[in-house]
């Protein structure tokens, strides 16, 4: 099996067949181990940030960490940062849902139908590696600068990892399962719903996990380029208003968000795919 995959900066393999995957817990998936050395390292670096900003680095763009934390609490609680953050999250999730939905549907179609697969795969292969930010300028011409454009960019970014993983998952469905469904004389629709989709779920989830991380990045980039609202735009505005503490507050919030999103989807995955991970042991 040729390992097919896309951008993933979270857990690996778009190759759920890796037996090791069930055995080796993902980074961050384990809690409560003695990681005090690591936490100390993080604290030491934050301390270095604080000290360097206070004593050595003289720049408006390098506020002490304590001021960033204060800005985060001031701006993030019911103030502007809170609202732009909500707007970004909504944009991201809308784009994600649309892109993922399309990706799953197209992936199933491509995975099942040889004609579609042969017809569309060259196009997919050509569009897939297209760096998404490169699409922002032409999409501004096509769709304007609103949420429609940014949502399309996000959906586009999400589409391909999900599509490719889904198609791969569909093709990797155990033939015996399909034959079983056939001998029980289940129709096409029932076979897809009861066999093909659940069996492809490990692959689909890999795609979703990859895409979620990507969706956040792309949302922020689109907002930085096209403005309007959102945390990416906020980040730029605060930078141009020379309020670097607020800007870093947004960065910190993004880090927390990225961490939380990954945690959530990994948790959901572990729950939904309990049968899959248990099997790997």
């Amino acid at each position, binding site marked *: 099996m040729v390992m097919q995959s896309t951008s993933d900066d979270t857990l690996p393999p778009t190759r759920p067949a890796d037996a090791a995957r069930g055995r080796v817990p993902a980074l961050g998936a384990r809690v409560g181990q003695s990681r005090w050395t690591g936490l100390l390292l993080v604290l030491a670096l934050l301390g270095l940030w604080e000290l360097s900003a206070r004593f050595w680095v003289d720049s408006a763009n390098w506020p002490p960490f304590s001021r960033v934390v204060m800005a985060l609490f001031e701006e993030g609680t019911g103030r502007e940062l809170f609202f732009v953050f909500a707007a970004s999250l909504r944009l991201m999730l809308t784009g994600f849902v649309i892109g993922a939905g399309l990706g799953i549907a197209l992936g199933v179609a491509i995975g099942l139908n040889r004609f579609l697969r042969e017809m569309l795969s060259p196009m997919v292969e050509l569009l897939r590696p297209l760096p998404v930010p490169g699409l922002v300028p032409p999409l501004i*011409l096509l*769709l304007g600068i609103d949420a*429609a454009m940014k949502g399309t960019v996000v959906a586009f970014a999400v589409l391909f990892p999900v599509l490719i993983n889904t198609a791969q998952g569909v093709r990797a469905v155990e033939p015996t399962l399909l034959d079983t469904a056939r001998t029980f004389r289940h129709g096409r629709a029932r076979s897809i719903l009861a066999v093909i989709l659940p069996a492809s779920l490990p692959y689909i989830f890999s795609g979703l996990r990859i895409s979620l991380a990507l969706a956040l990045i792309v949302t922020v980039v689109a907002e930085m380029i096209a403005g*309007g609202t959102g945390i990416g735009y906020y980040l730029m*505005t605060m930078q141009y208003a020379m309020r670097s503490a*607020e800007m870093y507050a947004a960065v910190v919030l993004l880090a927390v968000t990225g961490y939380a999103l990954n945690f959530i989807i990994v948790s959901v995955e572990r729950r939904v795919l309990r049968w899959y991970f248990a099997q790997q042991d």
Partner: protein
Amino acid sequence: MRQFAKSAFIAAAAALTALPAAAQDLTTLRVSIIPIIDIAPLQIAMTKGFFEEEGIEIDTTPTAGGAVGLPALASGAVDVTFSNSVSIALGAAQGLGFKVIAAGSFTGKEAPDIAAIVAKPDAGIKTGADLDGKKLAVNTRNNVIWLYANAWVDATGGDSSSVTYLEVPFPQMLDAIDGGQVDAAFLVDPFLNAGVSGGAVEVAGYPYNTIQSEIPIGMYAVTEDFLADNPDVVDSFVTAYNKGVDWANDNAGSDEWNEIVSGYTRLPAERLAGLDIPPFHKVVDPEALQPTMDLMLKYGLLREEMEASSILADSVLAK
């Protein structure tokens, strides 16, 4: 094609695209803005209700820079865009039919100005000749800043073709000078004020003033089609906007003025207080704009000569 793609997405994301409820009788104009001091009259007119008096509601779409507003104007996503003269002229030259309907911001009459080329105090950079073979930071290449940086270097004894222009975002220019990555930078307020008052940099020259006094820089543009279809709306817009210009000039430096401007720029009030903002105007004199067009031709942004008056609508010309 565009319409189809757009409506398809809107259908899919109806929940997302928060369309304003069209309850009032006001005509809604979508205006692309950049949240900088230059658009103070517009924000004032909005805050003071001047637009509503003319039956217009303004829906602003802020963007981080000018690269986005004009394509959005061309594609019909917004009705009016605040942008700079060079970008508007470039679009017009490409057949996008941009027309300036209202004046925006101007450079100062004389030094000190709102924009300057700065360098480290001990760098010894005072003229364009000192920049030969050096690195100069501009926020964007092929825009108005870059154009006048070139013009200034050549006008003060240097050779602009020997200068390396590096794109650095305004907020990072002081860091770039401090770190030695560039020798000089074309800074604008409030970064200019912050850098000079902090002693980090000294002014080498004011490129705009050196070339010409009171250059029209920022302006509001629509498309020809929009102008032809909505002459009354445009007139109402300009009337209300010009009221904002008057108020802005009459009340410059007042607490209310500061409050409005700091409200949309997010600039802290103490930053605003130190700034010397040139007065706003209501008209753009074609002759004041023409040198910019000629410079664009000289520095290769235009392939052929362009009459400044060709992009100016009646509403922005002297009556």
